[in-house]
């Protein structure tokens, strides 16, 4: 119970802490509750106003000075004459250059003021700015902070069931997050070390508490991971201290350059003309792309697992036998090449650094993750030999001079000969054809249905007539005879019957 209120207090604090402009960043009381960005905007607006006032004043002074200058040509007593001494012939240029200088002056002054404002240490301030600049957009980070609250709530709810150890876990996790926030300057490997040490430490303690029931420990550790990593995500995902971003871009570029690689070259056993297979391929691509949107390492892993499962079903449908690794890895490479997942290297590094190690090393998720790592490593090192191409061919494809799919006019004859028809290479067209076939089938079915309905209608109209006719025929065949009717008393037949008891007579009993 005490935890509950404690947490609620934090929650209120947090929304109070946010920037008053609602941009999703944290505000700071010294900046009137605004975040550094909004504060700077606000500040700049005020300054701009002042600059304009100053400029008006300067212009006025300038005019006075010009008048003075015109009267005494020799006197060069302008305060800011060092840059471009105004030429007597171009008097009109005078105020303009003046204004430029004024503006640069103003700018430098402003910068120093801002710097002063960010004191005590301008270094940390600039770092902060850089970090804020990195977050994709205010709306996204705002969304993220709501997520964070939800996760915290879930975490507390989960720990409530554990009672005393739950409180302990919560305390430790929060303390850990606080310590981590002071270690932002550390390298990625050190950050990973800290988190892994924390996992290890906690897991050991939990192991003692649950008396070796590894299932319960795992359950708790999953929740802890979710809570901690949702909080730390922003500061430890693709940190500035690592090369992750550079690698991301390199991989992305590499995959783009390899757009021409076909499933035949990779020997992937997909038959994309089967609609279920192409559906699975599309789903696999969606899942691997979705990985980037998750914050918790385990959620990212489950995206990979889902992607892998779709690949397996695609192989299973095509080959009609369980997929082995020989089939799976080329297929995964194909999917990665097609999807070009955003920030792939960062995501892999993030999972490697911050996922619970037991999951990565032995579980099913770990296997698929390992395969993804292999796929990426293969793509990075891919050369002519690994696609069974000659080095010249590989070079031509890489440089874009030729394409294996559509042979160019200057491409060689071998290519032109072996170029498969468009339907075979383009799964979308195959799908389209399939759908068209389905539609025409449907319309013919509908036509026959209409015909049947019309004949039914005709039958229905004809039916009363036939009935009428039949009835008439029967009436003619058996004309209605009206027999004379003898009316008799109901009990006439019983008149002679003496066996009947005498009718009951009412009797009166005295008394």
């Amino acid at each position, binding site marked *: 119970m005490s935890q509950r209120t404690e947490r609620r207090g934090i929650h209120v604090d947090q929304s109070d802490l946010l920037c008053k402009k609602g941009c999703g960043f944290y505000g700071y009381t010294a900046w009137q509750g605004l975040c550094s960005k909004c504060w700077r905007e606000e500040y700049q607006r005020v300054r701009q106003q002042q600059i304009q006032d100053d400029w008006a004043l300067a212009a006025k002074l300038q005019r006075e000075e010009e008048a003075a200058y015109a009267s005494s040509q020799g006197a060069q007593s302008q305060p800011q004459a060092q840059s471009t001494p105004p030429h007597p012939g171009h008097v009109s240029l005078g105020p303009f250059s003046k204004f430029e200088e004024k503006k640069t002056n103003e700018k430098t002054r402003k910068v120093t003021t801002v710097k002063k404002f960010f004191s005590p240490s301008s270094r940390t301030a600039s770092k902060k700015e850089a970090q804020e600049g990195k977050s994709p957009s205010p709306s996204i980070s705002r969304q993220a902070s709501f997520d964070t609250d939800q996760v915290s709530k879930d975490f507390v709810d989960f720990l409530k069931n554990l009672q005393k150890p739950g409180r302990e876990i919560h305390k430790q996790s929060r303390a850990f997050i606080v310590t981590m926030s002071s270690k932002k300057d550390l390298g990625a490997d050190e950050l990973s070390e800290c988190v892994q040490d924390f996992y290890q430490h906690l897991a050991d303690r939990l192991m003692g508490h649950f008396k070796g029931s590894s299932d319960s420990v795992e359950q708790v550790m999953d929740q802890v991971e979710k809570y901690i990593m949702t909080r730390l995500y922003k500061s430890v995902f693709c940190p500035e201290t690592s090369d992750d971003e550079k690698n991301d871009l390199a991989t992305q570029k590499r995959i783009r350059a390899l757009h021409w690689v076909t499933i035949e070259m990779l020997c992937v056993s997909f038959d994309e003309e089967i609609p279920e297979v192409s559906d699975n391929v599309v789903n696999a691509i969606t899942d691997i792309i979705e990985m980037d949107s998750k914050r918790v390492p385990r959620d990212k892993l489950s995206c990979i697992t889902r992607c892998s499962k779709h690949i397996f079903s695609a192989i299973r449908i095509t080959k009609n036998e369980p*997929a082995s690794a020989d089939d799976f890895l080329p297929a995964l490479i194909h999917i990665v090449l097609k999807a070009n997942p955003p920030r792939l290297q960062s995501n892999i590094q993030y999972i490697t650094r911050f996922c619970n190690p037991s999951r990565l090393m032995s579980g099913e998720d770990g296997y698929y993750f390992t395969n993804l790592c292999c796929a990426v490593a293969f793509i990075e090192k891919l050369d002519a030999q690994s696609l069974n191409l000659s080095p010249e061919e590989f070079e031509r494809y890489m440089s874009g001079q030729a394409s294996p799919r559509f042979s160019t006019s200057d491409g060689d004859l071998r290519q032109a000969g072996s170029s498969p028809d468009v339907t075979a290479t383009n799964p979308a067209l195959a799908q389209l054809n399939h759908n068209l076939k389905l539609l025409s089938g449907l319309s013919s079915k509908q036509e026959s249905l209409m015909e049947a309905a019309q004949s039914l209608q005709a039958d229905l109209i004809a039916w009363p007539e036939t009935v009428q006719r039949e009835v008439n025929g029967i009436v003619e065949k058996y004309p209605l005879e009206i027999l004379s009717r003898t009316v008799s008393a109901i009990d006439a037949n019983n008149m002679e019957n003496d066996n009947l008891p005498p009718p009951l007579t009412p009797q009166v009993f005295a008394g």
Partner: protein
Amino acid sequence: MAAGGAGGNSGKTYSFKVVLLGEGCVGKTSLVLRYCENKFNDKHITTLQASFLTKKLNITGKRVNLAIWDTAGQERFHALGPIYYRDSNGAILVYDITDEDSFQKVKNWVKELRKMLGNEICLCIVGNKVDLDKDRHVSVEEAESYSESVGAKHYHTSAKLNKGIEELFLDLCKRMMETAQAEERLKGNGASQSASSRRGVQIVDDEPQATPAGGCCSSG
């Protein structure tokens, strides 16, 4: 080794990771499907995939969770091997007794595994397809003497006839348990435990972990 050690010191459950290495058509998949599902080339195989399979065993009262990792055997993926067999407790190297090349491939794997993982890993060299003995191209003597020379055990199996597979996995599990127990005894004190069981997480694991556990988190 880490996974086995971590599971082992808590009580009775061991979890082992076993990689399956071998060239394309030597029957790795059939072997593992025969072991886990007891089916061969069956249209009724329920599993979607045969590349990651698990099996629960009970050996002399100890529970063992076996995770079998299949690897892509094509030559072009050879360089990716180390990513697969990192942290594995055992390796099953499969060759086809009718295919001399596949045996050569096994020799390459052994060399690589010993270089990367040392003697921590239990190796099994498996000659598959003994039902095709009349087409044998790898002699029994050569295979067995080679296996002995590299400290591996040699088995003959047939996934088709379900021969020798049960024994292969059971034997391997027993050996891995022995290795894990020996390591536990060696460790003795828990100080180095956390460090070593973390080793698998790093991609580059050549640097020894000097920092004691909990050194940099406040909770200590």
